[in-house]
């Protein structure tokens, strides 16, 4: 069970308090109606599935309840850093 640093609580907390929430930094288009089918498909379904450094979202659902972002190595499972939602990619 990983320890995950919640950037809001500023504590390392047990993984069991968190849920994974998919790849990070995929913003919902401001006006989806203007997107082509291909672009909408890319937004909905196409993911990096990185081997190695991966930006992903987690939620401290059984803690402060906040979504946040993380950079994690999918090979070692190690978190490099976590940061608040809305902050630029690290």
């Amino acid at each position, binding site marked *: *069970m*990983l*320890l995950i640093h919640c950037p809001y609580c500023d504590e390392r907390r*047990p*993984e069991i308090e968190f*849920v994974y*929430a998919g790849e990070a930094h995929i*913003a*919902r288009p401001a*006006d*989806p*109606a203007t*997107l082509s*089918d291909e672009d*909408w*498909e890319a937004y*909905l379904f196409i993911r990096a599935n990185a081997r190695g450094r991966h930006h992903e*979202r987690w*939620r401290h*659902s059984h803690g402060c*309840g*906040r*979504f946040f972002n993380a950079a994690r190595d999918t090979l*070692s*499972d190690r978190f490099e850093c976590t940061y608040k*939602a*809305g902050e630029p990619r690290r």
Partner: protein
Amino acid sequence: MSGYRIAGLGRIDRTRPVTFTFDGKRYAGFAGDTLASALLASGVMLFGRSFKYHRPRGLLAAGAEEPNALVTVDRGGGRFTPNLRATGVEIYDGLAATSQNRWPSLKTDVGAISDRLGMFLPAGFYNKTFMWPRSFWEKLYEPALRRMAGLGETPPEPDPDRYAATYAHCDLLIVGGGPAGIEAALEASATDKRVILLDEQEEMGGGALGDPSLWPWLEASLDRLAGTPNVALLHRTTAFGYYHDNFVGAVERLTDHLAEPGDCPREKLWRIRAGEVVLAQGAIERPLVFEGNDVPGVMLASAAGTFLFRYGVAVGRNVAVMAAHDSGWRDAFALAGAGIGVAAIVDCRDAVDPTLVLRAEALGITAYVGQSVIGVLGRQRVRGIEVCANRDHPGGRVSCDALLMAGGWTPSVQLWSQSKGTLTWSVELGAYVPGVSHERTQCVGGCSGDWHFGDGVSMEAMPTPRDPARIKAFVDFQNDVTAKDIALAVREGFRSIEHIKRYTTNGMATDQGKTSNINALMLAASALESTAPSVGLTTFRPPYTPQSFGALAGHAQDSLFQPTRRTAIDDWADARGAVFEPVGHWRRARYFPRPGEDMAAAVARECHAVRSAVGVFDASTLGKIEVVGKDAAEFLNRMYTNPWKALAPGRCRYGLLLREDGFITDDGVSARLAPDRFHLTTTTGGAARVLHMMEDYLQTEWPDLEVWLTSVTEQWSTIALQGPRARNVIAPLVGGIDLASTAFPHMAVREGTICGVPTRLFRVSFTGELGFEVNVPSAYGRAVWERILAEGQCFGITPYGTEAMHVLRAEKGYIVIGQDTDGTVTPDDAGLGWAVGAKKTDFVGKRSLARPDLSAPGRKQLVGLLTDDPLIVLEEGAQIVADPRQPVPMTMLGHVTSAYWSASLQRSIALALVAGGRDRMGHTLHVPMPDRTIAATVCATPFFDPTGSRLDG
């Protein structure tokens, strides 16, 4: 006692005799004995039969690595544990242990015929032989093989024991209480670190327990640790798994060693988070590979030492040693020093340390240097050995009653490897040793390769003049894998050690190859004409030793298996004999049978009451979310398919929620309580999912919106009153709300009181009847429910369950998310196109609805289905076809999603998802079932009261 017990040696308590049985026969031992040492003391050499060939087997080891001596302990009353290593079973008065894998008895085992047929049972035998004919596999081969093979039996009864569990945190976790672990604990005891030192045995000390010269140090050290409050010692505790961020799983055995377990948990699961981990798990001596190396009485040299000096038991009176390592000589000298006859030391090395040879000479021991054991005399116990020089092969025989193997040492790197630490091949040690750590962890002592047992060589097998293809030289004792099996796997083209492992099953038994992995690796490397490090090593996985399911489940047993959520009205329903069904983690009353009623009769009566008078239903499990903030309406407008901004306070609206991919995920009726406050409802199962999804959009996509979401599912008990008399029932109980139809129309909400407690009163209907949903603070749900029932007696009020609720809603064509939808259904598919705001520019899922495939013709649409024979109720999930005479596989048009007997209509009804369903109105379709094909006609819904005339009562 028997002549095998040696006076004056061992740590056993000779003042406390213990009696026990093995295979029904009574034996005696002493407190401090294991089953293995006590039986050995009584002259027992035969402990079990091997897995595949049913060969007689004795003890190989004295510790957790023991592969052969697996026993079952049956304490009665369902306390039944198979596959325990006799070397780890502490004896107590009344212990009843039995051997395994033999029939009818250990000495005479008919399965041993497979040993004679051994040449027909090579690696991969099962895969190759029992392929044809296919039908024989299930009925004949597999059951027969399973009876013959397998280790131990499955407990036949439920486990009556309780298991405890806890989390624990420390700065330093030390795994292994041998000298290295104790030294690490002593060092840390001077700091303010929180330290846990755990060991799998009943006594700390590890290898030191078998070396009397270390006992004074051991006693003094343990005294010091006992007086150190920051060091916690856990005995009989096995660290079985190493997980991320220094999270280590361990099981403490609390009662298995007690004659009277009492009302105590049997085991305790420790979930330990450590700042730093020190692994001090020691090393395991390696067997040597030669013909006959599995005859009872052939064992590890170190084990013989442990049995003698820790338990006071001689494994033989006249032993021989087969060594590839200096440690075997030292063990022989120690045994000789204690009065045990040593008939020979055979060493396969061409030259050994001359001081060893001189010492052997001084003790009168014959040394055979540059020679190897090529055969063992005796079948159920060792009677002698055949020795042969490595080069010129002149043979000779030596009489002995035990043969001790000293094949060098394998560091116990299982947990290290689980922690993702790398392993490095040490040529010098002929073993993998810890390399670079991944976690904050280090290995000390034997498991780091740091030992002082002298030198040795690593041999894949002893040289022999005999044809290697015709001898059984065992590598994996527990899974009966021989050297020639590994050679065969390589000949047949397997190259990866992971494949060789799976093909031969080497290392795949309950001991996970503790004594066999390195020998198998060296044999594979030799057959591949490669080296051990380039062949690699198989992956280590938890558990280090087998653990009980009970311990791993911890608290999650019986009624605590998982939380069963109960409403405030659940007790009342239980007392009234309700039949319950699980809905998510909730249990909900399905129907309330009266004496003599079956489900059909009860549900028909409950439905009739709702349609003719009034029914009352516990809807408390519905998810509820309070949405507050100045942008609340804007937020809901973006989330739901329909418009929300114009909804007036005091009014309700049906909300349909899609995922961004355009498919329905939830629905519910929601109310606007104030301009900036909504009371949302969700499905029972969707409550947590919907809140999570809404939080996601709110926090990450639209953080500018000033809106907050609060789950109020459990704040409110929800009591649904449905039926023409619903208003009459609550009228005398409600305060501050005008219930008249004009003042309080359908799809409205009012706040007031009921029975003197605050209520959010909804006028809504999931039945098509006049209906109210009474929300009251949960603490009062039960009392208000009972008052409503009392008040409704004169109107024939009838409690109804989820089954009647389903029938009533299906009669009206109302869908249930997850039953009539399956994650691939759009609003239009479900006939809910009306709930999509045509003028809205955006909402979650809107863009997807415009994708060509979501508006293409031929999509499955939800329609009504009426069987031609009105008495037949279709089966939910049944497939639908157009032409039942078409060849199999038929083209399936869809499936039945809901099907009930409708008491109101006196016929069956069904909902179905059917391709192009709305274009098939009036068509007859067919539902093929195993025994018949059922014809049914596609129709529109609702089935009942299509004009909605009953909503006002």
